[in-house]
C-alpha cells in the first residue's frame, strides 16, 4: 500500500504560543507514556511530529507532519477518532479551530489547512506500518527459535525447521503468504504523465511545422537555457553566503544548538526540523520547484528500496515550500545521530542537497547549482544547525528499527517460502 505524508499548517494564536510550546514539549518528553494522543491506536501511522515555526511571516504556525499508509481521508478520520480530545488540547491554541466541535468540523479544519508537500520521500516504498511491526515480530521469533536449534544442521534443514516453526505459530499465520506487492500504478502519479507529455510536445511538437521550424525552436531553447544559466552563475557569484565568513565565525548560536542537541540521541532514531528562507525572486522560486519535483520523482521511482542516493538511513523525509514559497520546510526521520546524518549527506548526496538548498538564503557558495555548497563541510554543518528548529513532539511507531532492519525483515519474509538455490539460501540465512 502506498504511503503518503500530510503537512498541515495552522496559524497559532500569538498570545497562546508559549502555552502551546510547553504543552507539546510535555507530550513529547515521554511520547510512549503520554495519553493525550493515543499514537498506538493510529494503525496507519509511521512517524509524526508537531513542531512550531514561531518566527515566520505572517505569524507563528503549528506544523503537523504525518507519514502514513493509505489515503489522507482515512488517516485523518482515524486520527480525529481516538485523538480528538488531544487534538482539541493542541489546536485550541490555533486561530479558527472549532474546539469541542463535532469530529466532522475538526476533520474539515485539518483538511482546510493541508499545504502542498513538494517532495515526499519514503525509504521502504509500499511497506505498511502493520507490515513493519509484524515482520519485526517474525524476525524476533525466528531469532528466538534459532537460539534453541541444535547445532550441526545444514542450511536446507535450518530453513525447513524455520518454515515448520512459522507454520506452527498461529500468531504468524499472516506470514504464510507474501506481502502485498508495491505496484507500478501505486508508484506512478498523474503528474508524471502530464509532465512527460508536456516535455515531449515541447521538444518534438515543432517538428510538425517542418525541419526548419524545429531547428529554430531548438536554437531558441538553447539560447533560453544559456541565458538562464548565465543568470544562475551571476546569482551564485553575488548572493550573500555563509561562505563570506571564516569557518570559526559561521558557527550557529551555541545556546540554540545546545537546546537542539539536548533533544537528540535519546533513541537510535532522530528527527530533524528545519526552515530556511528561500531567496527572493521568481527565478529561485521556480528553480527550487523544479529541483524538488525532480527529487520527488527520483525518490518515488528509483530510491524506494531502502536508500536515497546511497543514504540508507532515512525513513521518511519531506520538503515543502510554505507561506507562498517564502520558506522551505524540511522534515526528516532518520537513523543515528545528527552528525552521522549530515556526514552521509556530504559523503553521498552533496550534489542533490546543494541543488535544493542553494536556493535558500545564506547557503554556502555554489557553482553550477550542484557543486560546492554542501561539500563545504564545516560551513554546511553550521548552516544546517543554524536553520534547524526545536522539535517539540515527535513520534515513531518503531523507534528501535533502522531502515536496514526494516528492509532485512521484509527480505526474511520474502524468502521464507518457495525454492531458493544454494547461494540464495545462504544469503537468506545470513539475514539472521
Amino acid at each position: 500500500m502506498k504511503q503518503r505524508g500530510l503537512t498541515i499548517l495552522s496559524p497559532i494564536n500569538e498570545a497562546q504560543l508559549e502555552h502551546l510550546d510547553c504543552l507539546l514539549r510535555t507530550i513529547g518528553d515521554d511520547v510512549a507514556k503520554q495519553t493525550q494522543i493515543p499514537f498506538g491506536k493510529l494503525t496507519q501511522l509511521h512517524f509524526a511530529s508537531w513542531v512550531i515555526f514561531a518566527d515566520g511571516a505572517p505569524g507563528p504556525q503549528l506544523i503537523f507532519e504525518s507519514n502514513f499508509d493509505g489515503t489522507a481521508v482515512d488517516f485523518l478520520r482515524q486520527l480525529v477518532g481516538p485523538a480528538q480530545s488531544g487534538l482539541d488540547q493542541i489546536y485550541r491554541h490555533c486561530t479558527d479551530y472549532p474546539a469541542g466541535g463535532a469530529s466532522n468540523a475538526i476533520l474539515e479544519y485539518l483538511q482546510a489547512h493541508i499545504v502542498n508537500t513538494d517532495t515526499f520521500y519514503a525509504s521502504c516504498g509500499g511497506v505498511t506500518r502493520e507490515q513493519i511491526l509484524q515482520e519485526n515480530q517474525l524476525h524476533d521469533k525466528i531469532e528466538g527459535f534459532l537460539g534453541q536449534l541444535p547445532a550441526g544442521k545444514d542450511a536446507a534443514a535450518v530453513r525447513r525447521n524455520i518454515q515448520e516453526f512459522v507454520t506452527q505459530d498461529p500468531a504468524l499465520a499472516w506470514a504464510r503468504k507474501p506481502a502485498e506487492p508495491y505496484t507500478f500504478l501505486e508508484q506512478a502519479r498523474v503528474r508524471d504523465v502530464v509532465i512527460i507529455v508536456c516535455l515531449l510536445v515541447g521538444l518534438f511538437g515543432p517538428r510538425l511545422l517542418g525541419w526548419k521550424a524545429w531547428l529554430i525552436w531548438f536554437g531558441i531553447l538553447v539560447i533560453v537555457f544559456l541565458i538562464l544559466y548565465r543568470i544562475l552563475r551571476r546569482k551564485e557569484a553575488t548572493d550573500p553566503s555563509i561562505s563570506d565568513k571564516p569557518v570559526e565565525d559561521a558557527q550557529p548560536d551555541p545556546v540554540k544548538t545546545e537546546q537542539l542537541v539536548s533533544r537528540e540521541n535519546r533513541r537510535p532514531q532522530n528527527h530533524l526540523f528545519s526552515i530556511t528562507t528561500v531567496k527572493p525572486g521568481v527565478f529561485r522560486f521556480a528553480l527550487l520547484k523544479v529541483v524538488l519535483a525532480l527529487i520527488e520523482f527520483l525518490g518515488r521511482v528509483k530510491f524506494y528500496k531502502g536508500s536515497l542516493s546511497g543514504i540508507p538511513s532515512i525513513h521518511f523525509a519531506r520538503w515543502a515550500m510554505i507561506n507562498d514559497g517564502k520558506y522551505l520546510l524540511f522534515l526528516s526521520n532518520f537513523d543515528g545521530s545528527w552528525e552521522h546524518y549530515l556526514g552521509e549527506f556530504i559523503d553521498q548526496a552533496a550534489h542533490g542537497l546543494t541543488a535544493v538548498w542553494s536556493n535558500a538564503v545564506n547557503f554556502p557558495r555554489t557553482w553550477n547549482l550542484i557543486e560546492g555548497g554542501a561539500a563545504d563541510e564545516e560551513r554546511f554543518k553550521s548552516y544546517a544547525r543554524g536553520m534547524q528548529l526545536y522539535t517539540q513532539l515527535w513520534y515513531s511507531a518503531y523507534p528501535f528499527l533502522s531502515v536496514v532492519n526494516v528492509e532485512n525483515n521484509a527480505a526474511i519474509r520474502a524468502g521464507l517460502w518457495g525454492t531458493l538455490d544454494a547461494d540464495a539460501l545462504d544469503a537468506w540465512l545470513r539475514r539472521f
Partner: protein
Amino acid sequence: MLETHDIQGLILSGYAGHPFAAYLFLTVRAEADPRRWLGQVGERITGAEKFDRQRESSINIAFTYKGFVRLGLGANTMKTFPLEFIEDMSAPARAQMLGDNPDDWMWGKPDHRIHILLMLFARDQHTLSDLLRAERRAAQGILNEELAIESQTFPFSSGSKLNHEHFGFVDGLAQPDIAGYRPEKHGANGPGNEIKAGEFILGYENEYFGQLTASPHLRAPDADPGGMLQAGDFGRNGTYLVVRQMEQDVAGFWGMIRAQCLQAKGTPDVAAEEALAAKIFGRWRDGTPVAVSPNHNGGNPNRLNDFGFSEDAYGEKCPLGAHIRRANPREMLLSDKKDSITTVKRHRMLRRGRPYGPRIPDRYTPDGQARGLVFAALNGNIERQFEFIQQAWISSPNFAGLYDEADPMLGGRTQNAGTFSMQKCPVRERQSGIMPHVAVKGGAYFFMPGLAALRYLSACGASSSLAVNQVVEGIK
C-alpha cells in the same frame, strides 16, 4: 610539509621509547597567576622536530576550555572554539550522545572540571619519578593537582615492540599514517590508511576535498602585538585531545568468557576462551586479525594492520559487531568499498592511550586493584571524529545491520544488553551475557596547542584582562 618545529611531539609520536608515563590533571588556584609557570613549562615541552632516541623523557601539555578561560585567552577568541569543546565531554547533551553517565565519574564532571593536563613520559621509572618531583615543585602554589595517573606499558612478550592492555590484547595497532609525513615509515597498512594531516593537526588540508578544519583564531579586541601567531591562527599546529579514564574489570571480563565457554563444554577450555575473546575483540591477543586468521594459524606478525574486511564481508571470520570492526570499519562500512574508504577516512583518530594500574596476577581472580586505560585520542574535530565513532559505530545498536547490539567490549545504548552475534555458515551463533567490563571514570576534551600558541598563551594573559574572562565563565 608539517611545521614540526611548532607541533607537540606526542601528536606525531607515541613515544615508544618511553614506557613510563604520568598524567597530571591540574587546576589553577583561585588567587594564582599561572603565566610565569606556563612560560617556563613551555620551554620544557617536547616538540616534534627531532625524535632523539637517546632522549630520556618528554613533556606535553593540553588545556580544557575552562583552562583557557582561566589562563586569560581573550573572550572573543574563545568564541571561535567549537561547541563540543566549550561544553566539554560531561555536558548533559554530550553524555547523552556518548552514552555516558558522568554522575558516576571521579573527575571531569560539570562541577569538577580540569584546567590543564600535563603529560610526562620517561624511559624508566627513576627518570619519571625525578621528572614528576620537578614538575610538582614547579607547580607548587600555582596549581592544584586534582588527580595523577601513573602508567607503565606492558610488552606483549619479552623484547616485543608491541604492548598489551589489561585484558591482554596487543593495543594501538590501527594507527592512521599521516599523508606526506615520513612516508618511508608507512606500512602497506590496508586500504585507505593514509590520511591527510588536517584530520589530526589544525592548519593543514583535511579529507573533505583538502579543506581546512576550523581552527580557533584571535578575534578583536584580542591582539597579538608580538606577532607570535601566524595570521592570528591560535589553533595552528595544535589539535584536540580526547581523554577518557576507562577502568577495566579484568577478572570480570575473563570470568564472563570462562562462564560462556563452560556452558558449552562443562570444563574450562582455555583455547575456546581465547577464541571467543578474539571474536569479541576482532584480534587474537597477539594482535593477529581474526579476519585474516580465523583459526590463529596464519597471518604475518609484521603486517598486523595490513588487512581489510572485504574477504570477510559477512563476518564469518571477524563478527560484524566485533570491537575492531566497529572502531574502524575499513573498506566495509558501506556496500561500495570506495565510498566506505572515503567516509571512514573522515572519522579516524591518532590513538595515544596507555594502561594504568598493575598487571593482574591471574586473569580470573579479582585482586581489588584499580586498573584500566588512559584513552587518549587526537583529532582535528571532536564532533566529527571521536564523538562520531563513539555514537555511530561503537555504541550504535544498528551498526552493520545488527539489531540491538553494541560494542561487546565497551557497551552502548541497547534495550537488552549483552547480545553478541557471531556470523556463521549456515546460520549465526548468538551469545547473550557478553557484558561490558569497561567503565568510564572520567573524561574531558583538551586542546594541545602548537608551541608558538603556547608562548602566546603565557604572554597574552598580560594583554587581556582576567576579569573579563571570569565574567564569561560565570555566564557559561
